[in-house]
């Protein structure tokens, strides 16, 4: 695993030179693909392999009915393919689960950015939150300890005896392996239309928020994305929304008819950060439709049209959101550029656990004489 990452990076370095040359030829100041290279991540293969088995294991959820991959589907860029994530059995959800490719490169997580520490914390939140996986981690730990394959893998990973703490380390290690691979933008194989789209991207101001290696400024903005009424009209989704806003301490949550977004982070008294959401990465978009925090936009064409119209309606809308007056050609080129930021699907056995899990927990033999 480590070796393969190193190889990919050296390929990126070669591409850097080409990118620089391109930037110069475009006569664009301050734009080069040198900014775009994702930094190398050191990956411990044994830990990542363990994390992979955990990521696809339904026994990691309360009633053993869903795994991380239920909402983060490999064939959909590790996001959900419907507008709203399915959530835990017995309830729905109120947001679109984010694609996890490159998540290890982020500094802040979730659409509202409420977790800014590390993926260990994000993993804990996803596993234990009642409307997501609803798992008592003490039970999870004992389930893991009941599977000899896990005991072997935790040992091989250097974690010793399985514990919920090391589950929360192993899954992030696996997530490091989900890094963009083969995007034309990185490989220097962008089409002419994509190249033209990159110019549009920069000239029309997309890059003011979608900047850096991940094409995100890591900040929350209000672009006026319309509410997804299914959040409120379907009681299964609405109950998850109510549970979430209640838990986050959002005042008057029963009357709330909009997603507060990053407001939950610092709850500005004037409400000016109501409906702000973290700028998403633009990498791997071709794999992760639908788009926006609530899946309201079905295609990249819709997204470009949304921005062309200056976004949606909201009194808190970012002033940078202005109508762009793009020609059809510019729109098409912009879509082509966005598509060039997407690489291969990570759906092979290198990334997806394919072995069957035991149907029953094997019994620990001679239990009376074994230390628990």
């Amino acid at each position, binding site marked *: 695993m480590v070796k393969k990452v190193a190889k990919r990076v050296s390929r990126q370095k070669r591409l850097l030179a080409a990118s620089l040359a391109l930037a110069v030829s475009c006569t664009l100041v301050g734009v080069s693909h040198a900014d775009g290279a994702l930094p190398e991540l050191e990956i411990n293969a044994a830990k990542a392999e363990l994390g992979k088995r955990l990521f696809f294991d339904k*026994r990691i*959820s*309360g*009633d*053993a*009915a869903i795994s991380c991959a239920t909402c983060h589907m490999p064939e959909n860029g590790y996001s959900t393919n419907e507008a709203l994530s399915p959530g*835990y*059995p*017995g*309830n729905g959800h109120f947001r679109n689960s984010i694609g996890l490719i490159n998540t290890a490169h982020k500094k802040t997580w979730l659409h509202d950015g409420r977790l800014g520490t590390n993926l260990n914390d994000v993993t804990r939140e996803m596993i234990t939150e*009642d*409307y997501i996986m*609803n798992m*008592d981690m*003490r*039970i999870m730990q*004992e*389930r893991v*300890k*009941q599977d000899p394959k896990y005991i072997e893998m935790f040992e091989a990973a250097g974690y010793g005896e399985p514990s919920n703490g090391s589950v929360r380390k192993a899954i992030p290690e696996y997530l490091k392996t989900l890094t963009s691979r083969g995007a034309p933008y990185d490989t220097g194989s962008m089409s002419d239309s994509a190249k033209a789209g990159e110019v549009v991207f920069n000239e029309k101001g997309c890059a003011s928020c979608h900047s850096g290696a991940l094409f995100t400024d890591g900040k929350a903005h209000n672009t*006026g994305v319309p*509410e997804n*009424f299914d959040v*409120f*009209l*379907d*009681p*299964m989704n*609405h*109950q*998850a*929304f*109510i*549970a*979430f806003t*209640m*838990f986050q301490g959002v005042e008057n949550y*029963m009357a709330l*008819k*909009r997603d507060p977004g990053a407001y939950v982070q610092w709850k500005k008294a004037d409400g000016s950060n109501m*409906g702000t959401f973290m700028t998403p990465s633009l990498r791997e978009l071709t794999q992760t439709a639908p788009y926006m925090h609530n899946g309201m936009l079905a295609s990249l064409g819709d997204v470009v049209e949304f921005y062309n119209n200056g976004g949606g*309606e*909201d*009194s*808190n809308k970012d002033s940078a959101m202005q109508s762009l007056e793009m020609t059809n050609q510019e729109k098409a080129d912009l879509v082509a550029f966005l598509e060039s930021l997407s690489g291969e699907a990570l759906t092979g056995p290198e990334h997806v656990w394919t072995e069957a899990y035991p149907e*029953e*927990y*094997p*019994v*620990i033999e001679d*239990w*009376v004489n074994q*230390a*628990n």
Partner: protein
Amino acid sequence: MSILKQQSLPSLLAATLVVGSVAGFGSVAIAGSAAPVLEPLDSISMPIPPDNKQTDAKIALGKQLFFDPRLGGDASISCSSCHDPEQGWAWAEDFSRGYPGTVHWRNSQTIINSQYMGRQFWAGAAASGEKQAPSAAKGGVAGNGENDIMEARLALIPEYVTAFNEVFGDEWPLIGNAWRAIASYERTLVQTDTPLDNFLKGDASALSEEQVRGKAVFEGKGGCISCHNGALATNEEYVNIGVPPNVRWQEDGLAQITFRFEQYAKGQTEEGYRHAKSDWGLYYRTKNKWDRSKFRVPSLRYTMYTAPYMHNGVFYTLEEVVDFYDAGGMDSEGRTTLFPENKDARIQPLGLSDDEKADLITFLEAFSGEEMIIDKPSLPEYKALFTEAELKEVKK
């Protein structure tokens, strides 16, 4: 007989003690103290907490909530899933069924008459029905629910919103009041007309001859009365009677998972977690080593419908239970508690004859009346809180 009849009068409870000691009650009389006796259930009144008075509307709401699976983690199991009216308001396997993907580690106890008890759960971990209900609904191997999602669900069920408002004055249903309503409903689940009750109240024909003989064994040679006395047929003390660990922990991977989890969840030392091979019962509350594997003496009422028996359901028939006591607290294979030093000194081989055992078992059946089967309530449905028109009107 006339003395027993007098004892059925609640106003004479104090006098009962005097009468009991004076009358002597044969072989079970203990010098200098009142001899324990059985009493009819309606000789005591249901304790009603002053902050949770019974009302018809509250009881009706509690009944719906008792059967509503939305008061659980994945909305698939309710209180009634493990306390099934058709399984004696309990669960007819050794361990309760548990949350999907788990199995419990203790036997599910019947709801019938449970609210007379001073404390709830096998080791008395909850002080009231109001405290027992959330503990079960939220426990990882029971309901696995969380307050916020369960409260959110109630808010989207208009019939509940109205009922919580009428009963508790809640603007939106508060989850704490759901437990109050459930406890109120459970306080209505009582059975006061068993053959034993009728007998104790003066109907000599309520027990058969065999049962009357069995009663003599119960109160005499069997010594059962020393713990199983009073109106509930329990003194509610915590006693280690020698029940062996359930062998299922040696044979069932899922049960092994829960066993270890419970050591965590109930509070154990590292040493205890590593080496416990049985349920330490009252120890988890007191952390006293002399409390290991002590459990509250269960009521004998309604037991005809609540097999299997004991905190871990190791005995599937009353015959096995009687044989266990007859052997001095040992099962048919000679297995007993892992803490024999804590075993109650009163548990000794009894030397009961086959006839005495048969009479005793027949008498135990007199603690149960008709099976209490009810029509399950219809459950109200979710409804969207807002209309699409209301959502469209929002000015953002």
